[in-house]
Structures are given as structure tokens and as C-alpha cells.
């Protein structure tokens, strides 16, 4: 007895549908009842949302294909302009019902043309007596097209006066779509994530022909035990399952264990899966490399992942430029004197801080004083020094490294460069071009370059570890020059 019921379709079709789309029965039956029978007008627009790989696209595709409903399926990422999108819909419409070769392609520049051409197409394809479905996958892209596209699609039924339903599929909620000017509210439908049980059921469905379903289900169980914490993407899990299955079967193939020896099999596969989670799942090494490793029984240790190659070789002055940029980004301007002037005197950090912090704090407390009145002036001043200490500690805690890099002008960069490089550096064209190439390498970034004449401002985008590695190669103790580590 099928869970799905619908007067328009025979029971075995519905049963088939159910087997194709496990764990999505309620959504499918909901959709079926909205769709109604072929000739009945359906709701003008339906908005379906749910997390990545919750079966939105798959359900829509299988439903429309199996029931052979006339439909157009378009991915909005692929057709990135409104013109491409509208033309694609028309082209698919032309080839949808009639099997004849597509006729000459008609340019369609705006929605007005689209409505006109759409009406013609529907009439010529004899689709008036049944609902036509237009499915727009990744519909969040529609928001980036012209403002009228989304509202127009939502009331396409009304605009064309034809039996058409637009289905929008998206990963984000409807609230983020709604234009300020208001629009026709579509019927929203939520696809919840698959639970672990669902995943188990779906993944076990496609077992390899050589092995029994139980054996494969046991394997999927182990797999989910390892990966469910980090990954719920059905597609990715499927991929991982296939990649590692041959390793799971190894003991069985070699005759060391039989198919029911789950403990032994688990012992064999578990460390392997953990390794896979650190490497192939993160795409540190590619799946084909992983398969080759498995095949040759090699250790994944031999193969370094992408992140292992962090070392970047730079020319000598580029290294210093980058170091100078880092210092300029993370040190406050007022400390430059202390770090880079030869005779800066004995200014310690505490002095520095006191002067600076005191000013701001006294200002704050002073403002408070005024409100409290002058009578308690003396007592407040005593408390003032206490407060100073408290905020000083707090002040020390706000490290510049937590706040991120700050922009600095070109002149400051060069000034710091001249003082950290031992020998004299001439400001040659080579130095300036190196700054530009550091920007193209994304090690520096330009901040607000609207005024070409004004000195350009940069930010250093590399991490502390990176810059320390660079500084080590030129024997420069960068920590000594960083205000945060003083």
C-alpha cells in the first residue's frame, strides 16, 4: 500500500515514485496535491528551500520526469544574465513537447518580449490544456538580475494568462528574497535535512552488485559513524563511500574475514576513514590520487597535501617589503619612532601606554566628573588612578593582531623598509614594481584606490606564521619589532 495517494495517477506509478525518492514522502505528497491533475490550474509560484543536498533538485526532476509533466528546468547560475535565462526557457520550451529540431533562435531581451513569445510557444506546442512547470534552480541568483525579473516570474501565470507554475529552488529562506516594493507571495515549502537514519537508508540503497545489501549497509554504518560529524552532504558521502569501499572489501577478498566479521572489518577500515577525513575529504589530495594510493597500498604520508606547501620563495627585497608592510599594518604609527629611530631613548612600552591610555581615560573620567559635580572632585581623582590601572590592563589585551591589519600609506612602508634593511636601498623602479607584484600575489592589498594622485594605501594580508617564516630566512627577528609582543 503506497504512502502516496493521488486520484490522477495509478498506484504503481506512485509506488515507483516512492522507491525513487526515499525519505521525502511527505514533501512529494504535498507537491502532488498542490500540482493537482494535469489540466487543473496550480498555484502560480512555489518556493522550495532547504539546506545543500536535501533533495530539492532531485525531487523536482524525478517528479516531473516520471509523471511526464511538461516542464522547463533551468539553473540560474549557468544562465547568469536575464537575457540568457529567458532565452534558455524559450529554447527548452520549443524542444520540450515537439521532437522536431529546434527552430531558429529568437532574441528575447526583456520580460515583455518573453511574455509575448511565451504565449506563442505555449499555443504552438499545444500545452494550453495542461500545467507547464518552470523550475528555476539556484533561484538566489535572480536577485542579482534586473529588479523586475523575480516579481515577474512570481506572477507569470497572471501575466501570461496561461496554465503555468513557476517553482523556485533555493538554499536560503524566502525572507531574503522579498523585494522592498513587495510582490506576489509564493507558496513556501521547506525541505528538512536528512537525518542520519535517512542517510543510512538512502546510501545503502545503491549497493554494488557483487556484494549483499547487508554487507554494504554495515559499511555505510561505519562510514556515517566517522563522517556524520563533519559532513551531511549526501553527494559527498556517496563519493566517499565509493572511494573507500574497495579498502573495506580487502579482508574479504583476501579471505581473511567473511562478510559477517564486522569487528574485523571495522578495525581494518576505521583508521583508513579517519585518514580520508583529513586528506581526501578536505581535497588536500585528490580522489584519484587517493585511489591510486589505495591500489598500491602506499602510505598517504608520502603524498603531501596542498596545505603542506606553504613556503613561498620571494626575492630578497620583497621579503623585506613584506616584513615592513606587516610591521606597518600591525604597529600603531606612534610606535614607529621607538622601533626605528636609532636614539629613541629609553621609552618602554609601559611609558608609552601610560601616556596614550591616560589621555583617553582621563578624558572619559573627566566627562563623568562633570556630570557628578565638582564637590567630590578629590575623591574621584583618587578613584581615577585605580580606574586607570584597570583599563590599562584591558588596553593591553586588545591586541592589534585580533583587530586585523590596518591600512598604511606608501611613504610609511618605504620609511620602515629603509630602516630595517641593513644596506642602503635606492628607491628604484624595481622596488616600486615589487610592491605592485606583491599586490597581484595577494600578499598585500590596496585600500581605496579612488584617488590616484593621493599616496596609495595598502594592507598586509599575510598571517603571523607566514611572516615569521619569511623573517627567519633573512635573519630578522620580527617579534622584537612588533608592538603586540613587547
Amino acid at each position, binding site marked *: 500500500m503506497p504512502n502516496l495517494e493521488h486520484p490522477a495517477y495509478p498506484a504503481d506509478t506512485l509506488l515507483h515514485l516512492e522507491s525513487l525518492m526515499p525519505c521525502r514522502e511527505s514533501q512529494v505528497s504535498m507537491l502532488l496535491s498542490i500540482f493537482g491533475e494535469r489540466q487543473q490550474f496550480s498555484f502560480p509560484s512555489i518556493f522550495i528551500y532547504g539546506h*545543500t543536498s536535501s533533495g530539492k533538485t532531485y525531487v523536482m526532476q524525478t517528479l516531473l520526469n516520471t509523471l511526464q509533466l511538461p516542464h522547463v528546468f533551468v*539553473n540560474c*547560475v*549557468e*544562465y*547568469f*544574465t536575464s537575457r*540568457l535565462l529567458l*532565452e*534558455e526557457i524559450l529554447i527548452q520550451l520549443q524542444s520540450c513537447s515537439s521532437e522536431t529540431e529546434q527552430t531558429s533562435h529568437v532574441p528575447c531581451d526583456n520580460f515583455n518580449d518573453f511574455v509575448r513569445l511565451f504565449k506563442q510557444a505555449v499555443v504552438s506546442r499545444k500545452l494550453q490544456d495542461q500545467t507547464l512547470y518552470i523550475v528555476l534552480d539556484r533561484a538566489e541568483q535572480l536577485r542579482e538580475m534586473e529588479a523586475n525579473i523575480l516579481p515577474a516570474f512570481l506572477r507569470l501565470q497572471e501575466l501570461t494568462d496561461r496554465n503555468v507554475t513557476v517553482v523556485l529552488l533555493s538554499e536560503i529562506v524566502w525572507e531574503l528574497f522579498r523585494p522592498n516594493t513587495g510582490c506576489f507571495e509564493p507558496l513556501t515549502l521547506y525541505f528538512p535535512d536528512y537525518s542520519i537514519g535517512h542517510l543510512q537508508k538512502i546510501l545503502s540503497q*545503491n549497493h*554494488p*552488485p*557483487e556484494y549483499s545489501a547487508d554487507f554494504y549497509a554495515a559499511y555505510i554504518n561505519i562510514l556515517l559513524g566517522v563522517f556524520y560529524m563533519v559532513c551531511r*552532504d549526501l*553527494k*559527498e558521502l*556517496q*563519493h566517499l*563511500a*565509493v*572511494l573507500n*569501499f574497495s579498502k573495506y572489501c580487502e579482508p574479504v577478498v583476501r579471505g581473511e574475514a567473511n562478510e559477517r566479521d564486522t569487528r574485523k572489518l571495522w578495525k581494518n577500515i576505521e583508521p583508513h576513514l579517519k585518514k580520508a577525513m583529513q586528506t581526501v575529504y*578536505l*581535497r588536500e589530495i*585528490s*580522489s*584519484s*590520487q587517493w585511489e591510486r594510493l589505495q591500489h598500491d597500498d602506499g602510505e598517504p604520508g608520502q603524498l*603531501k597535501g*596542498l*596545505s603542506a*606547501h*606553504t*613556503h*613561498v*620563495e*620571494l*626575492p*630578497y*627585497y*620583497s621579503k623585506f617589503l613584506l616584513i615592513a608592510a606587516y610591521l606597518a599594518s600591525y604597529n600603531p604609527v606612534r610606535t614607529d619612532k621607538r622601533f626605528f629611530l636609532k636614539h629613541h631613548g629609553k621609552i618602554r612600552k609601559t611609558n608609552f601606554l601610560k601616556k596614550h591610555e591616560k589621555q583617553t581615560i582621563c578624558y572619559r573620567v573627566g566627562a563623568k566628573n562633570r556630570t557628578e559635580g565638582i564637590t567630590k572632585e578629590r575623591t574621584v581623582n583618587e578613584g581615577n588612578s585605580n580606574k586607570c590601572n584597570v583599563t590599562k590592563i584591558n588596553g593591553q589585551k586588545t591586541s592589534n593582531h585580533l583587530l586585523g591589519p590596518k591600512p598604511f600609506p606608501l*611613504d610609511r612602508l618605504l620609511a620602515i623598509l629603509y630602516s630595517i634593511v641593513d644596506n642602503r636601498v*635606492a*628607491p*628604484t*623602479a*624595481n*622596488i*616600486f*614594481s*615589487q610592491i605592485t*607584484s606583491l599586490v*597581484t*600575489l*595577494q*600578499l598585500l592589498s590596496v585600500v581605496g584606490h579612488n584617488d590616484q*594622485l*593621493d*599616496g596609495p594605501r595598502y594592507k598586509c594580508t599575510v598571517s603571523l606564521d607566514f611572516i615569521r617564516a619569511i623573517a627567519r630566512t633573512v635573519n630578522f627577528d620580527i617579534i622584537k619589532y612588533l608592538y603586540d609582543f613587547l
Partner: protein
Amino acid sequence: GCFVFKPSPKKRKLSQKTANYFGERNNASEDTDLRFVTCQSLWNQIKSETEQIQEDLNKQLFDNLVSFLRRSHSEFQEKTTEWTCRMKSREIPTAALVLGVNVTDHDLTFRSLSEVLQNNITPYIALLEAKDCPGIKNLIQKLMGQLMNCYIDVDSLEDEDHVQVSQNRIRCSMTSIISWYQNVTKKTDSETRSKKRTSSSRHWQSPPVVVIFKDMESFTTKVLQDFIVISSQHIHELPLVLIFGIATSPMIIHSLLPHSVSSLLCIELFQSLSCKEHLSTIIDKLLLTAQLPFKLGEKVLQVLINIFLYHDFSVQNFIKGFQLCVVEHFYSQPLSVLCCPLVDAKKRVNSLSRDQCENIRRLPSFRRYVENQVSEKQILLLTADNFLKEITQKLLEDLHVYHENYVSVLRCLHVFTSSLPKYPLGKQIRELHCACLENQVWQTEEYESFLQLARMLNKSDLVTMLEQCVEIFVSSSGKEFDKIVEKLKEFLTQFQELEEAFQERDGSVSAQKELQKKTDLYHLQKTLLELKESRRSRKLTKFEMLRFEVVEYIDSLVRAHLVPADHKTLHEIVYFNTASVLRGHLNAAPRVALHTSLNNPYCYLKNQALKNDGGNISNKAPDICIVYKLHLECGRLINLVDWLEAFSTVVTAAEGPNADATSSDQVDDIIHARFIQAVSELELLGFIKPSKQKTDHVARLTWGGC
């Protein structure tokens, strides 16, 4: 493609023109044509050699890439029915190609890469640059343009009209690329069926479409993500392979692409040779060889290497600098006609003109040579051209022999120095080469420490080094090496004998054995001290004697053959030594040049009136110079009225005190206009900009502005 078949006369005309330029400066000497031809042929030789080196160095990388591309889609084409292939999500094969930060060299690498791919894998290659692809639309457009063009290139021109549909009529989307691909493969398929099978066997039935992202770092994330998402949906219809050109580190992939996108890729890493190694090879093959007649002097080489190491890491720039040296040398040195293979040089010496002979006599190194001769010979050398030519031939030959010996001995010395701790004379052979060119290397402290360290080498190291040296000498073409080789081999046999003798009386190690027995600290210390004493007083062992001899011998070789080049007579002919010219050309200092031109216009204008004392401002200088000098005295904000006043004072100063008294408080209109023009010129050059902080003020943007 129509420019390829352009006839060559144009080219010839062009080179004639350059030849004319060549003679412009030294029109006195008539060898300019010959010099030009020599220069060209030398450069062509160098060029082909460097290209060959490049090809050899990239071979390994390209082979790996080709096999990766072969593999990438074959799996799916062969066994689509198998369970694993059915179930696995199909990723886009991607090669992450780490090329190093020398971005200027990448172009060449990509060009040769696409050539290799075209020959081996697929005709469908698209090279994309970030600056052409600000949006996904532009990317697809560019991709289509390149793919469809390459289709025309591959096929003959017969069906050109078929494909020539104007760009904007084609819908720029992935579907059109797919339909194009299906058309193309269908066509070639039917063609191959009609033709012989072998003709197109180098590409298989559905060759992959290779898309190369030249500068991965500069692409925006959005474009890359969209492209990958789109193409992953069509991977079944369009066998796409991506190649990411990465300059920094492969980490950039993860920082550019989120996991949901990078999980669509199947990324394999390929790393090219480091540019430092590349440079070493180039130096090894171009400079440390006696084949090329042209040599670089120490300072020049240092400039080129410094630019490479300190600034750009670009091998192409290094070669360009080398080219500049070649051209500059042949252009400025009239005697460079003799800078050619020895056989030709000897012939050319005979046909030297009087002027050229005088040129030889004027060479400082030749003068030194003359001074050391006996007086009759001196007179002959200075008066008889024929005698001079004879001697010149001999000297040139000497120079050639010197080079041959120099290279081998240098390599030999490098074998020793490169294995010593702390590398007293540098790790790379180029450092050693520079040190030897600079002055007599055996007088330096580093050499002293090298000798000391060499005297402490152990036997096995010494033997392997000697063996390497023998190999170097045997493989080199020098004639004088027979004796050296003999001597070295003799050393080796002596070591051999020593070892045999040592094995016979094995008992001598007893002292050491005793040492192991003693366990308490006091005794141990005592015996160690004794051992030390005995070692100091003891006579040198046979091995030590021999080692001493070897080091002495190497030292003598160095002293004999590694004489700096500028001690050699006639070195000016083959060595290019004017580093200042090179520095001026390659290491330009725009700020300094701008400052000098504005501060001291005489430097460029060469007008005697401008030649003056440092301090005061001459009114004969161009207006912009006056304005510039005045603005140097101001702070960050400059008052325009004051500035104008100062300007008019300077300009009218020359007219003297008898100038009109009435005009003193009213600035002349013409002067006013000149001032405004000069100020706007300064603004154009980026020295000042209008300020919004104060009215009638401009802000300084340069030195000391803040």
C-alpha cells in the same frame, strides 16, 4: 593568422636600420657592420641555447602534466558501466601548477605548455587571464572565442565561412560551448573514419578541453566559483580539464574556493623547478663555458645577479639583461669585432685597420703588457702594425686557453668549497666565480679559511672529491690537463695504497679501544688529555702528509689558473665591464631622476646658462624648476599667494633694480599665467594636489610632505 606569412623584406629592412644606429656613435671605425653581424649571430646562439635549456628544464614537469591529462578522462570513457564509476560523483580534473613568484617568466612557460599539449593531447586549449575576466560573462566569452578560434586553426581554411558568425550573435553560454564541442568531435570522428586511422591518432576521439587560468591569485572568487559550478554540471558532456597557474602557494585554492566548490574538483599538484635552480643552469651553460666568446665582467655580473636575487627572480629579465650587455658591448667597444670564435678572430686580426690597431694600443691592459717588454719590442709593438697583429693573435690565443683552464679549475675548486661546512667561498658556483673575477682569490680571508678546512677533510670525502675533479678535467676540452689528471690520479692511487697498508696493521686502534673500557670520569679525562698531547707532538701520519700535498696542489692550480680576468692582456675585447650603464638601464630610479631634472636642469638640458652653483635659484631655469625649488622649502600645505609672490620675485630678479616700481605690488599677467602653468604641471607630475583643508592652499604629496 595572416601575419605569419608576411614576407621577410620588412624584417631585413628593419635590421638594416638597427645596423645604422649601431654605427652612429663611432662612425670613425668602419667595422660597424661586421660588429653588428657578429653581435646578431652571437645573440642568436645565446637565444637558442637558453631556449633549449628552458625546454630541458620544463620537460619533467610537462611530461607529468601530459600523463595527468591523458589519465584524467580516460577512466570514464573506458568503463562507464562499472559500479564505482556510476556512483562516484564526477569531479573536474584540475592541475594546480605552482610556478613561483617570478610572474614575468610564466608567459613563456604557458606558451610552451600549450604547445606541448597541442602536440600531444588536444587542440582545444584556452588561456585565461584575470584581467580579461572581471565577470563570468567575460570569462565565457573569452573561453568561447579562444576555443572556436583554435578550431579554425586546426582545421584547414575550407570551412571558415561556416564558423564565421559574429561574436555577439552566438549566445555566450555553456550550452553553446557544448554544442560546438559535439559538432567538432562528430566531424573529426567521421573524418577519421574516412581517412586513415593513424593520421589523428595523437588525439583520441573526444579530446579534453583544457582551460588554463594563468594567474589564479588575481581571479575573483565569484567568477571562479561560478565557472566551476557551471562546468561541473556539464562534465559529462564536455570533458573539461582545468589548470591553475599559481604563483604563491597552493593554499590559495582553499582560500579562494569554499569547500562546496573545491569538492567539485579533483586537484593534483605540480611544481615547477625553482627559479634559482633555473638561473644556476643558465649561468652554468652561458657564462661558465669557453664556447661563447663574450664574457661578463665581475661588476656587471653582480648587477645582473643582484637584480635577480633582490628584485624579481625573473630568469627572462636576467637573459634580457644579458642581451643588453651583448648589444652594449658590441656597440661601445670598437675592438669587439674580435669577440668571436678564435679561428675567426685570428683572421679578423689580419684585416684590422690602422685606427683599430691604435685602439688596441690604447687599451690599458695592452699598455701594461708593453711596459713589461724589452725596449726594442716596445718600439716594434708601438710602431709596426704587422708585428702588433702577430702579437695580438698570440695574446688572443692565450686568452682563450686561459678561459678553458679557468672554467675547469673553477669547477674543481667549487667541488671542494661546496662540501665544506659554512661554505667559506659561497655555496653556488656563481659566487665563487664572482669572487675569482673580483681579485686574486688566494689573497682573501675566505680562501685562507677554505684551505684550513680542506686540510681537515676526512679521507673518503677527499677521495670522492678528487674523483669528481678528475672527471671534470677529463670531460673538459683543455689541452694542458693531461698532466693535472695524471697528478690527481697519482694522488688517488696513493690513497688506495694507504688504505691497503692501513688494513694490514689494524692494531693501531688499540688506544681507542682502551678508551672504551675506562668507565670512570677521572681516568677518561686523563687518557683524553694524553691522547691530545700525543697528537700534537706526534709526527704527521702518512695520510695527513698526503692530504697536505693534495691541498697544496689544489692551491697551486688555483694560483696558476684563477687569475682575475682584468689581469689578462686584451681582456677588454671580450669582457663587458661597464656596470654603470647597465645599472642605469635596468635599475632605473624614477624619483631620483625626476628630482635631478627639476632641481638641476643642467644635468639634462646642457645649457651653459643653467650651469650654476647649488644654492640659489636661477631665473633662467624653466618655470617648473623654479616652482619646484620654491615648493621644496614649504611645509605640507603651500599658500598659493606666497608661492606666486616668491615666483615673481625670482623671475623678475634678473631685470634688476631698475625694473618698474609700479609693477612691484601688482604681479604681471604674463608671470601669473606662467606660474599657473608651472603649478599645474607640478600637479600633473603628482607633486601637489588641491587641498580642501584651507582655501588657496595646495598639499604637497612628496618627500617631507607629512
